């Protein structure tokens, strides 16, 4: 059995170069039925040739859009549904998705911005080190796991809907926000269980309240103070700006702050031999 299928249909896609239309600084790519590898080659090619705005039409689950792309002042517009691992390892560009995104958005991302005008899936921002991810609607499980900060790099993720279990697990740095506003699951809890389990850095803000049994034993739960909200406000303002939402409405409900008790939760667990 050959490892890769012969040219033709692979996993429902065609392994052919897509049509790229160049107009000034804009490159428009029709992604209809194109396999991710050829699509991403076209995106990287357009950026290498100087396009600062790449418009992808008819995106239908293609993976790795913007993955590993290192560039400044570049915007990628995704029309359709972005596939898994969008913006993984990304370093600089802005991606705006007019639709929903699947799993792994912003995985191990370094810098840049991702705006999703819809829902997103599981494992968003895993190990994310910098940049911002703004999701308008609901997100799935394992969101914001092991986000971390380093010097000027502080990752920010704001999710407008509800989230499931393991929100901010192992978190080591950055800012993770959950609003619970644009949700399809208004009757369900804002967030699942194991929130911030193993957390040892960074901060989580929830618009509304959370029960202590939903959270990891490593986090302290307090009501966000005025100072906290003043620090958070620019982030929320930027998010509202990107998502076309009313900041006053976002701020109309008190926020809960989750922060770790210790930066070294396992410091006393071991007995060296």
């Amino acid at each position: 059995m050959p490892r890769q299928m012969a040219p033709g249909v692979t996993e429902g896609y065609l392994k052919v170069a897509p049509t790229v239309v160049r107009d000034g600084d804009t490159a428009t790519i029709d992604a209809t039925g194109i396999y991710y590898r050829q699509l991403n080659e076209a995106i990287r090619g357009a950026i290498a040739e100087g396009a600062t705005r790449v418009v992808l039409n008819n995106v239908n689950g293609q993976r790795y859009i913007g993955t590993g792309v290192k560039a400044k002042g570049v915007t990628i517009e995704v029309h359709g549904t972005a596939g898994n691992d969008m913006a993984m390892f990304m370093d600089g560009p802005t991606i705006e998705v007019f639709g929903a995104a699947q799993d792994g958005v912003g995985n191990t991302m370094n810098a840049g911005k991702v705006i999703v005008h819809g829902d997103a899936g599981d494992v968003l921002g895993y190990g994310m080190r910098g940049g911002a991810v703004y999701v308008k609607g609901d997100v799935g499980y394992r969101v914001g796991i092991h986000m971390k900060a380093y010097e000027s790099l502080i990752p920010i993720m704001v999710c407008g809907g509800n989230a499931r279990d393991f929100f901010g697990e192992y978190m080591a740095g950055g800012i993770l926000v959950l609003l619970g506003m644009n949700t399809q699951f208004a009757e369900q809890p804002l967030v699942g269980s194991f929130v911030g389990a193993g957390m040892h850095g960074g901060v989580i803000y929830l618009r509304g309240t959370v029960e202590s049994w939903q959270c990891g034993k490593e986090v302290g739960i307090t009501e966000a103070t005025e100072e906290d909200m003043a620090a958070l406000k620019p982030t929320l303002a930027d998010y509202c700006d990107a998502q076309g939402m009313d900041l006053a409405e976002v701020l109309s409900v008190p926020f809960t702050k989750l922060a770790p008790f210790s930066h070294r939760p396992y410091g006393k667990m071991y007995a060296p031999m």
Partner: protein
Amino acid sequence: MPTSFIQPEFKVKIDYDKCHKCGRCVQQCGWGVYNFNERPIPDDAKCRACHRCVTYCPAHCISIEKNQLAYRDNDNWSPAARKAVWRQAETGGVLLTSMGNPLPYTRIFDHLVLDACQVTNPSIDPLREPMELRTFIGHKPDSVGVESDGQGGFRLAEGEGMKNNLKLDTPILFSPMSYGSVSLNVHKSLAMAAQRLGTFMNTGEGGLHADLYPYQDNVIVQVASGRFGVNPDYLNRGAAIEIKIGQGAKPGIGGHLPGEKINKEVSGTRMIPQGTDAISPAPHHDIYSIEDLRQLIYALKEASGYKPVGVKIAAVHNVAAIASGIVRAGADYVYLDGFKGGTGAAPQVIRDHIGIPIEIAIAAVDQRLRDEGIRNWASVIAAGSIRSSADVAKAIALGADAVAIGSASLMALGCHLCQSCHTGSCSWGITTQKPELTRRIDPEWGAEQLTNLVHAWSHELQEILGALGVNAVESLRGSRERLRSIGLDEQMNKVLGVKPAGM
């Protein structure tokens, strides 16, 4: 109450008649064993038997002896088992240790012997005849194409097949050890040696320090669950990328570099704040299935212009099925780490009781991949206590494409296997970040030591191949017919695919 039930493991004896009173032992000991009051006075309890003081004593007047305390005989409750209970009663902690599993499990390599030619087919003299050790790591084509060379002859057709392979001049790599667990000078030594030897060193999960950029073509960069130091630049510098799923010394658990070891340089390379613990989660939280692994493999390929991507796993019970999944997920090599592999820090209970020997893992994986007809899709790198060129030859005969050495390479730099890496006070300057200790290794000297070791093993490997009557390591690969076992039971012979000696 006594402060501890545990008595010193060693006795430091100084022959004061010979002692120069020079204080060098005081200066050399990283554990603070010695006080100096007109003459060096040792505190036995702190000694780790690393022999740094012994090696540097100009008068040769220090000896380290076992503290021969008599324990009431009890095969069940060994002194070590008793000490472990006492230590845990004192602290309530998980016992933390380092280096490989020291328990007396069967050493299968020592029960395997190699063949040689006698009379009927001639052996080869590697000193005077070509003896090829060159090894390619990566996906091999399913078939070989031939095309006309335009001059009436033929040549091998250019294909995708071998392009993405790593080329090694000898089937020995340096195993992953992170900057943080070892010092930067150790990393430099490994990188320089890898470049000179035409092989590869591996960053481990600690990022790539800028000082190693000149050697990046001989560096495999690792991506583990903590994603420390991983960004597009890092992925593009390495010759290949390795996804670390597991480690032989601690299968199934994460890593934990204590804040004390995260100094400014380590912090910069890992891209995390100084002084915080670097916690690698037990699993990659974006890999919960073989499909997820495939997704990460191809994400790394997308991000790096389709460099080879390998996957490192600990050898565990189901290793053959797991390796098959990894190969089908698109990995260019599978790195198998046996349960005797070393570590910079691991809970003792995990190190000593989890995982399976590398010999069994190699045989099981090689057989499974052959049975499934996918052996050429990926290479197999074996590690987990490769102690000599004989182990290299036996591992390759069992089915490995190459081996990786960690403990042996550190021994080339002075490691005496005192199992104290986790303390961060290595007197040999290897597993420490204290500047007064790390400067004990000069990378130039370290590179030479490592180069010597691998050269010596490579020469010996050539001698073994010559005795076997083959002129390339390729001809030994997976050739279990050239192995026989001594003292292994029938079941084990079956698993290993070797016959007992005499058959």
